[in-house]
């Protein structure tokens, strides 16, 4: 098991290096970075000075090496637009994104799995059909549209929830959290709901598909023949069996949810990391773009590794193979 983890960490490192090269090249090679930093009507002299100061006159590979060197000490550079260290910029916005992402993921899982299992257990019942239609909607409708609809319904028409912004926050260990205040919660509700819907649909559909498949197997028949109750079969046999593919998807979708937060944060003006990246793309704030992409890549690698480990932990059949 340990050897497995070490091997994966090594691979992760290599992958990060490749991604950093790709991202850096992609972002810095297109367009002219200097245009963001200075206005077009400064003198040629100032222009050249600034270029030199930032190292843009160097060949790209040299710039990349410098970038790596700084990276080794945790320096992601400074934002062109905000003129503050990128890392602290990102970290300051992270809690907001984490709040809605975690709320969305938890909600989607805790509600989605039972609903999906029921739909798989009794696929011909009216409730199941309703659940499936709703899940198709949640799955196919683009996140931004649902967000719009939510704002339209709750904020504009009903007026019960705010249309955007973060609301009040409470500071714990120097970090601002909004879920601890009622006002903060009302602001958090719609964006979290928006994010959750896609994942909810996914969880429902996967649970349903898995449950349906397993219901037809001999394992369930044998359990029934032994007189085990339907509740036992669902809770002890089926849940355990569908946990395996579900965990995989859960992990991967966590990252995807984080990515979709980009859209949700834009619509709800939620001051998280997602909004930051959109803004930095439109303003071509390159250091922020590079840092964000690399951090997202790192997050995904960590998630993948965790999922792989969880997979082995959940499926005893894999343990024998992994340790050999």
């Amino acid at each position, binding site marked *: 098991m340990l050897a497995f983890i070490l091997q994966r960490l090594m691979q992760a490192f290599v992958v990060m290096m490749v991604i950093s090269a790709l991202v850096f090249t992609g972002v810095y090679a297109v367009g002219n970075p200097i245009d963001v930093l200075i206005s077009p009507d400064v003198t040629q002299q100032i222009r050249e000075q600034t270029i030199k100061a930032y190292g843009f006159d160097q060949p790209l590979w040299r710039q990349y090496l410098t970038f790596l060197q700084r990276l080794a000490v945790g320096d992601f550079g400074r934002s062109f637009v905000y003129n503050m260290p990128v890392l602290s910029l990102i970290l300051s916005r992270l809690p907001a994104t984490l709040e809605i992402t975690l709320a969305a993921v938890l909600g989607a899982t805790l509600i989605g799995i039972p609903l999906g299992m029921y739909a798989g257990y009794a696929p011909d019942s009216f409730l199941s059909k309703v659940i499936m239609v709703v899940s198709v909607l949640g799955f196919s409708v683009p996140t931004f549209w649902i967000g719009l609809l939510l704002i339209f319904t709750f904020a504009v028409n009903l007026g019960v929830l705010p249309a955007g912004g973060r609301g009040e926050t409470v500071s714990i260990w120097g970090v601002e959290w909004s879920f601890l205040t009622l006002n903060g919660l009302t602001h958090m509700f719609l964006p979290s709901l928006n994010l959750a819907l896609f994942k909810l649909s996914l969880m429902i559909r996967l649970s349903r598909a898995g449950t349906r498949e397993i219901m037809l197997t001999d394992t369930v028949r*044998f359990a029934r*023949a*032994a*007189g*085990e109750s339907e509740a036992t079969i669902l809770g002890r046999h089926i849940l355990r069996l569908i946990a395996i593919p579900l965990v995989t998807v859960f992990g991967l979708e966590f990252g995807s949810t984080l990515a979709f937060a980009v859209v949700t944060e834009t619509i709800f003006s939620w001051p998280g990391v997602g909004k930051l990246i959109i803004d930095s793309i439109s303003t071509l704030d390159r250091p922020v773009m590079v840092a964000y992409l690399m951090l997202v890549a790192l997050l995904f690698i960590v998630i993948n590794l965790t999922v792989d480990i969880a997979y082995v932990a959940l499926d*005893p059949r894999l343990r024998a193979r992994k340790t050999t």
Partner: protein
Amino acid sequence: MSAPTGNGLPLLQVRDLATHFTTRAGVGKAVDGVSFDVHAGEIIGLVGESGSGKSVTGYSILGLIDPPGRIDAGSVRLDGQELIGLSRSKLRALRGKRIAMVFQDPMSTLNPVLKVSRQMALALQAHGSPSPDEIRRRSLEALAKVGIPDPERRLASYPHELSGGMRQRVAIAIAFLNNPDLVICDEPTTALDVSIQAQILVEMKTLVREAGVSLIWISHDLATVSVLAKRLLVMYAGRLIEEGLTADVLRRPRHPYTQGLIDSLPSRAEPGRDLVQIPGSAPSLFALPAGCAFQARCTHATAICDTAPDQTRDGTRTWRCHNPLGPLADRRAGTTA
């Protein structure tokens, strides 16, 4: 230990059982009017090729038919109590407790992600609230009874860590856990090595005798069944075509199909000559002919076989044939080894 039925009734009475599958391709009559009895402590063998309806008969007894299948007609009585139409909770109380079942492939019947101990515990908890100590004690007892060495270690294992024969023994142990009166085994040794097959057959015989349970052994393999069963039931195309004491049926088969089955046994083959086969193949269950289902492949068929034969009874023997094998078969039986 199953109590002998005081009123002299057979333990299980199946009458005119009909289980049909309604699909896009039509209505498949998997079981088409089957009747038989099983007495307390008796081992009967249910024989037939794949598609004959033998497994479906077994499932029907336990009410394990999933849609699009449905028990359309007939009656199944356990100690006089009608099982068809029984409420779900009452049926569940019976399953595992009075009637248990063992399936063909233990790799798919045992849950691969749960330990053996957990699966046995679930089966025990389905019929009572035993304490953890009692669960452990009874599980170990059951494993030892089916001949599993080092039961403690096996109890803590996952199914994939056990060999095929071991797994099937676990499944059998689970079936016997709650001391049922009747155990139905659906091709339990088909998926195992021949050597393990023989072992399990012997163990089953002892187990059944000691526990005093009745056993329905379903198989396509006439050879294995005849070792175990006291009585033989032969099914073809959803119908019961022959029944009787094993020795009787094997020595003096009445139905040409049974004769064909016996003749095609490898042990009956004469060295150096081709194996005997029954020509043709069984009719599709969705398009059963109006008359005798075996007519197309029967060397004894005549015009009367266009109408479905009724069951003829002679003591413990029954058969469904217009032209049963008679004295000719008796004579032949006298000359074979």
